[in-house]
């Protein structure tokens, strides 16, 4: 049997995990109708062959709801991570290249990081009128500072690198330096940071929806499913919380794994392992 080296193993894991996540994300819209369908003739069923995740008190299929919820989470996570990462890229680069911008951006980063995370997400979501827009704004506007700091630090470090200084002395144009020296070193960091924002965004979306500050109740969001299940735990309906909660953890772990493998594949330091 052929043994994969670490790079190949990472590649295989990356491909498989990405495929699973993509499949979950895509099946959401297809299952939306099934997830919302109520049928009281099949309410409160424990897990069985027809309904592997059981049904809830409205007779909704929990497997369909969980998948639809995860899909929503992933799509929302993608949107917020994208917005966050773009903001981080712009602000981080600006801070690294202009001293004045650096003061402002660093102050902003300190300000945002100084407020407890979940509180900030809740405040922004509330101010934005809750719902999909509120959650997106809340998560997107609170997750950029960490990545912005990484990018700022990375660029500052690159600018002091011997090859960068040498290129500067040789009179290489700005555009060329960006293309040849800055981007190849920074992009891996950026992409890994972007992927690692996903699990954060998903968990925070689920948290504030669970607490009642996020998505509306008719959306099959994981946070909403978990929050609803709380009222039925003491009545013995464990499947309402266990499977959706487990699935959420699995998705978050997959994303973290994908980010880690991506780093391994792209990072110059580990690229030849």
């Amino acid at each position, binding site marked *: 049997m052929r043994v994969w080296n670490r790079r190949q193993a990472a590649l295989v894991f990356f491909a498989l995990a990405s495929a699973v996540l993509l499949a979950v994300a895509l099946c959401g819209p297809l299952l939306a109708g099934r997830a919302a369908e109520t049928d009281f003739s099949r309410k409160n069923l424990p897990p069985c062959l027809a309904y592997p995740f059981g049904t809830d008190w409205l007779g909704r299929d929990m497997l369909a709801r969980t998948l639809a919820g995860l899909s929503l989470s992933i799509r929302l996570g993608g949107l917020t991570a994208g917005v966050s990462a773009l903001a981080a890229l712009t602000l981080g680069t600006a801070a690294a290249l202009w001293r004045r911008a650096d003061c402002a951006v660093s102050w902003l980063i300190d300000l945002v990081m100084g407020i407890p995370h979940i509180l900030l997400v809740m405040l922004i979501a509330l101010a934005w009128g809750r719902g999909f827009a509120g959650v997106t704004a809340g998560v997107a506007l609170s997750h950029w500072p960490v990545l912005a700091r990484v990018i700022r630090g990375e660029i500052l470090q690159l600018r002091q690198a011997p090859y960068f200084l040498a290129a500067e002395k040789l009179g290489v144009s700005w555009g060329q330096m960006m293309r040849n020296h800055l981007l190849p070193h920074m992009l891996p960091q950026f992409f890994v940071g972007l992927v690692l924002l996903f699990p954060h965004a998903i968990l925070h979306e689920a948290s504030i929806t669970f607490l009642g500050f996020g998505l509306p109740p008719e959306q099959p969001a994981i946070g909403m499913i978990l*929050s609803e299940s709380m009222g039925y735990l003491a009545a013995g309906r464990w499947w309402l919380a266990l499977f959706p909660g487990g699935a959420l953890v699995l998705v978050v772990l997959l994303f973290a794994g994908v980010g880690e493998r991506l780093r391994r594949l792209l990072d110059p330091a580990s690229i030849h392992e």
Partner: protein
Amino acid sequence: MKKRSGRPWSRAFLALALGAGLLSGCGSAHPSGSGEAGGPEGDQVIIALNAAAEPAAGFDPCLGWGAGEHVHEPLLQSTLTVTNPDLTIGYDLATGCAASEDGMTWTVTIREGVRFTDGTPLAAADVAFTYNTAKQTSTAGDFTMLDHAQAVDDATVVFHMTRPFSIWPYTMAAVGIVPEHCYDSATYGQAPVGSGRYLLRQWDRGQQVILEANPDYYGEPPKIKRVVILFMEEDAAFLAVQAGQVDAADTSAVYAGQTPPGYTLLACASVDNRGINLPAVPAGIDSQGRTAGSDFLADVQVRRAINIGIDRQEMIGHVLNGYGSPAYSVCDGLPWYSEASQVAYNPAEAAALLDQAGWTIGAKGVREKDGVTAALHLLYPAGDSVRQALAAELANQLRRLGIDAAMEGVGWDTAYSRALSEPMIWGWGAHTPMELYNLYHTDKETGTAAYSPYANPAVDGYMDRALASGSAEESYTLWQKAQWDGVTGITQQGDIPWVWLVNVDHLYWVREGLQVAEQKLHPHGHGWSIVNNVDQWCWS
């Protein structure tokens, strides 16, 4: 209004608390401090009520204790009148009460020999003081019809009204009398002095209240000498029942299927109804500039079809696990209820009504008329799982009639304005005919009813006459005529601007051996109603 506040934080804390409980082995925590629950030999009961039942402002009738939408007997104070088991009026402190010819004054004589728990006698001056104070400070009760109260002598109090109000005795049944000489609104709620069946021994905010029988009570001495009320969320109460720590506990249909050993399920009939408003005018902008009305529901045939086209029994089976009764009005079973409200489930006739009205089955099985589809957007208060389930069941049933129904959970901040143009699942049911007035009578300024656009001068006229009649008893027939007088009204043959779905039974776990006295129809709200007559309970 109809909030059952969904406090998101409480769930997080509950989760932690449950976890902590598991870790500590749920051992020694006896909440009352005195150990075991009452048990058959004792004259004490421990009752778990919903955490929302704890009065935030304390046990002060002038701040709303006992009054309002979740009306119940104040226990610590006595009231002038009481509602009998059939919801007619009886006397407690009062020995007689009568309105003047023009209805502008009510004269009430009060019983002698009644003392507050601090030993001072209760006089008419205390009664007048209570009502004048409550008028200023109460946010739960409506005192707009009272101008002022005046003590004529020690045993007679006269209420001067701003308008005739024949059902004043129902207001009097919800106002506990406080002592003028020691009342301070800042402290009274925590340490009430009253003349009721019980006195407040201890109140640990957020946890429990301990009541003890008032030794100087003028009426029959309470059989239960000590009442401990624990405030718990539903799931915590269920766990407490399973652990045998309480004698009676609030519960719901979710838990009804799994009776813990040693307990029985007590289902109390209620007028705690759920229904939907059907905006009875075409869509547009009302006089206040708000979006109101619905082109589909403005058609009275459509509203009639919905009323007879829904299977209430099926709804009760599906949503309430059988613990409920069909609702046909906001006041089922009360003395002012009109039998004309009752309808039979008849899907064929409902379909015929819709066909006659021109709403014929179109593409995808949804009815249409002149290019308008028969579509409804059902609102329900977010976080209320029973109303969510009712909305889902109603939507399913409406689809069978060819009406396309979607549902949406809304917060109370937007619910009232949204309901002016879209049907919403409401909960009502109080021990006063004023509820009919509040829902169906037009407002002078807007010319339409408060919660859902509707106006019928004949219905208004009957209710105005009912309020102007000589006594509550005389007014009953006029309230009934307001519902249906043979020609017009708010029932199936009339305008049917609201469709009533179910009355939700109030469910309690009761320890075997505890005899809970006969209950009146419980009003809206799962609170103190069960303990209205705790003094008459006994252990067998």
